[in-house]
C-alpha cells in the first residue's frame, strides 16, 4: 500500500505519504515542496502494519487531508514568476480583478521557465457559464512550444460552488491531443460536447473523466482508440445521470473493457452511474479483474440488485481494493459484503434513499 495525501488551504500546504512494506510502514510528511521528514514504524506482522497504516490514514483524512494522485497546483496570478517544479492552475474568479483564465495563461507564457512546467490545470474558463474552453485550447496549441514539458493536463477543475458539473461546457480535444500526443495524464470535468476524437496516446497512463451525464459517443471514442493507449494504468469514468444528459449504454462499457486492451490497467473506475447495478453485473467473473488492483464502483445508484451480483462475484476477492462507497444497499447486505470482501469499502456515506419521493440519485449529477 502506498498513499499520498495533501492538506491545503490558502497558505499552508502540507503533504503526508505512507508506504507499507512487510511489517513496517514509512511515513514521509512535511511542508509541501520540501523533502519532509521520514518516520518508520514496525509491527509484529504485515497484516498489522497494513491495518495500522489504514487507521492512521483515515485519521488524516478526517482532519481534512485528501488523497491525491499527485501534487495539487498553484493558482497562477498575472505577472507571477514561474517555478518549473510546480503545477499551475488558471481560472476565472467571479471577481474580474484577477483576469480570465486566458489572461492568466497569456501572462504565464511570457515568464521564464514556463516551458519547463509539467502540469497544467484549467478551472472556470469564462465569466459566463456558457463559455467553452475552445479559445484556451487553441491558444495552448498555438503556443505549444511553451507547453512542451507538460505531461499532465486537467481541463475543467470547477467546483460545485462555481458551476453545476452537468453544465460545464467542454469542447473537442482531437486537435489538441494530436499536438500533445506524448502526455501521460489527462483529466476532464464536465461532459457537455466533450470529444477526444481518434487518439494515439502511447504514453498515456491516466485518463479520468468526471461528468454528471456522459455521452455514449465519448465512451465509444475511447473504446475505438483503446489499442492506441497501451500504457494506460488508470481509467476513471463518471457516467452520471440520464437527467443530466447521460446516455452511456451498457454495451458500450462492455466493449470498452473487453479483450486484451489496456494490458497495463491497474485501476478502473466505472462509477457515479444511474445504472450502477448494470455496471456491477458486467464485472461478474470478468477477465479484466485478473489484471486490476482497484475497481471503483462508487457514487452511483447501487442497490440490492447490484449487491447480489457483487456477492456472487468471487473474482472480486483478488482485488486489492473494491470501492463501493455511496450506495443504497440494505444493512444486512452491506454486512455480508463486508464479511466476504475485506478488501472492499461499502460505506453508505450519506446516500439516503428518499422514501417519500421514491427517489435514488447519483452522488454527483447536479
Amino acid at each position, binding site marked *: 500500500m502506498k498513499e499520498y495525501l495533501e492538506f491545503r488551504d490558502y497558505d*499552508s500546504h502540507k503533504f503526508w505519504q505512507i508506504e507499507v512494506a512487510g511489517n513496517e510502514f514509512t511515513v514521509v510528511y512535511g511542508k509541501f515542496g520540501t523533502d519532509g521528514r521520514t518516520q518508520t514504524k514496525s509491527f509484529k506482522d504485515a497484516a498489522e502494519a497494513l491495518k495500522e497504516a489504514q487507521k492512521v490514514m483515515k485519521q488524516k483524512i478526517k482532519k481534512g487531508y485528501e488523497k491525491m494522485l499527485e501534487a495539487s497546483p498553484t493558482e497562477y496570478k498575472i505577472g507571477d514568476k514561474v517555478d518549473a517544479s510546480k503545477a499551475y492552475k488558471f481560472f476565472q474568479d467571479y471577481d474580474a480583478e484577477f483576469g480570465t483564465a486566458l489572461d492568466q495563461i497569456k501572462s504565464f507564457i511570457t515568464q521564464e521557465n514556463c516551458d519547463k512546467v509539467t502540469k497544467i490545470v484549467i478551472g472556470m474558463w469564462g*465569466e459566463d457559464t456558457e463559455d467553452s474552453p475552445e479559445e484556451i485550447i487553441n491558444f495552448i496549441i498555438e503556443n505549444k512550444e511553451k507547453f512542451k514539458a507538460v505531461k499532465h493536463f486537467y481541463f475543467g477543475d470547477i467546483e460545485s*460552488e*462555481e458551476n453545476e458539473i452537468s453544465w460545464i461546457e467542454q469542447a473537442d480535444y482531437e486537435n489538441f491531443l494530436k499536438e500533445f500526443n506524448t502526455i501521460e495524464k489527462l483529466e476532464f470535468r464536465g461532459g457537455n460536447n466533450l470529444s477526444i476524437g481518434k487518439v494515439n496516446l502511447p504514453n498515456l497512463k491516466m485518463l479520468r473523466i468526471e461528468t454528471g451525464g456522459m455521452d455514449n459517443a465519448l465512451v465509444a471514442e475511447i473504446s475505438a482508440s483503446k489499442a492506441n493507449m497501451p500504457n494506460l494504468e488508470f481509467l476513471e469514468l463518471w457516467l452520471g445521470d440520464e437527467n443530466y444528459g447521460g446516455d452511456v449504454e451498457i454495451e458500450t462499457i462492455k466493449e470498452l473493457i473487453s479483450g486484451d486492451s489496456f494490458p497495463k490497467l491497474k485501476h478502473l473506475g466505472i462509477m457515479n452511474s444511474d445504472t450502477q447495478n448494470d455496471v456491477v453485473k458486467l464485472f461478474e467473473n470478468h477477465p479484466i479483474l485478473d489484471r486490476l488492483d482497484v475497481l471503483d464502483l462508487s457514487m452511483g445508484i447501487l442497490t440490492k440488485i447490484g449487491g447480489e451480483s457483487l456477492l456472487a462475484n468471487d473474482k472480486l476477492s483478488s482485488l486489492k481494493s473494491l470501492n463501493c462507497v455511496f450506495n443504497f444497499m440494505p444493512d444486512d447486505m452491506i454486512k455480508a459484503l463486508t464479511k466476504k470482501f475485506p478488501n472492499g469499502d461499502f460505506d453508505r456515506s450519506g446516500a439516503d434513499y428518499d422514501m417519500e419521493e421514491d427517489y435514488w440519485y447519483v452522488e454527483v449529477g447536479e
Partner: protein
Amino acid sequence: MSNLKAQTKHLIIAPKESRRAKFWIQLLEQNNLSYLHLSYLDIISDYFSLEKDIQYIVRLESAGEDFETYQSIIHFEKNATNQILAKENFGELSNFESWYIGWEKVLKKIKDLENIFQLKFINEPLDIALAFNKKATQKLLLENKVSCPEILTSTSYESLISEMKAKKIAQVFIKPIAGSSASGIMAFRYFDSEKQKAYSTVKKKNGNFYNSLKVQTYETKEAIKEVFNEIAKSELQIERWVPKWQFNKMNVDFRVVVINKKVEFIVPRGSRSPITNLHLGNQKLKLEDLNLSSEIIEKIKQIALETMLCFPGLHYAGIDVLLSKKAKVYVLEVNPFGDMLLNIVNEKGNTTYEQELESLI
C-alpha cells in the same frame, strides 16, 4: 427614597420555552442574580408588571421556535386578534412580511417602555430590528465600506434573468429581506431557459409553501418561477452568490460572535449544499482544523468588528462572514441572536453566555 444605589435586576424577554432563555437564566441563577422572565406574549397583551425604581438589564431573545408567539406577532401587525392560524401553517411563507412588520412593532413597543421604566438593553431593540432587515443592513454596511456581495435590484423572475445576463452574473441568492436562518432562501443558477437550477429551503406541500429542513432542488423554469414568486410576496434581497472557499469538499462560511467589541468566537460551518446553515443539519468545524493563515483569520475578525461598529446598539451579535476562493471576505448577515453556540467555549473557557455576562460587569 433611600440613597442606596438603585436596585438592579435582569429582565429576559423570550418565549417561555426558549432554549436560549434557559441558558441565560441558568447562568444568572449560578451567579445569584435576580431576574424576571417575560414572554413576547406578555408584552403584546400588556400582561406584565415592572417596578419603576428597579433598573432592569434587558436581554431580548429570538421569538422563534414558538407557535403561539409567532401567531401573536403576526396578529399584532394585523390588529386582528381573533383570526386563528392553523398550527400546521407554522412556517408558511406567505406570513413572512406580516411577521416582520409585527416583529418591528413589538420591538418598538419594548423600546418605548424605556419612557416609563429604567431599562438598560444589552442589545437595543431598534438595532435588532435593523439587523433583521437585510436590505437596510446592507445599505448601512456599504455606506461604511464593509464588503457585502453585489446586490441585484430585480423584483420579478423575468427581470432578474435580464439583470443577471446584463451583469454577467451566473448565480445569485434570493432571500426575503427580513428572513432569519435559512427561511425562504433560494440559491439560483441560470444558464439558459432550458438549463436553470435552484436550491431552496422552500417546499410546496398541499398547495402551500413551507420551509423545509431539507434542501430542495428545482430544475424547470415553471418550478423555479413558482418558488421565486412565493418568496417575492415579501420584499426581496437578491445578491451575487459568491463561490465559497472549500475545505474537505465542503463549502465553508464563518459565524463570528463579537461580544463587547471583541471577536470571541469563530465557528466555521461546512456544507455540501450551497445553503450553509446550522439549522439544516450541516457541520460545525473547528477553526484550527482548517489551518487558515493568521492573515486570513485577521481579515475575518476585522470585517466582523467593522460590522459591529455600524450597530452601536448591539453589545453582541453573530456575524456571518464569507471567504472567497481568492481570500476576499464579505459580510452575509448580522444576527442579533446569533450567539447560541452549543458546547463551544472561547480561549478563556467561557461559553457565549458566560462571556456576555462577564462583559456586562
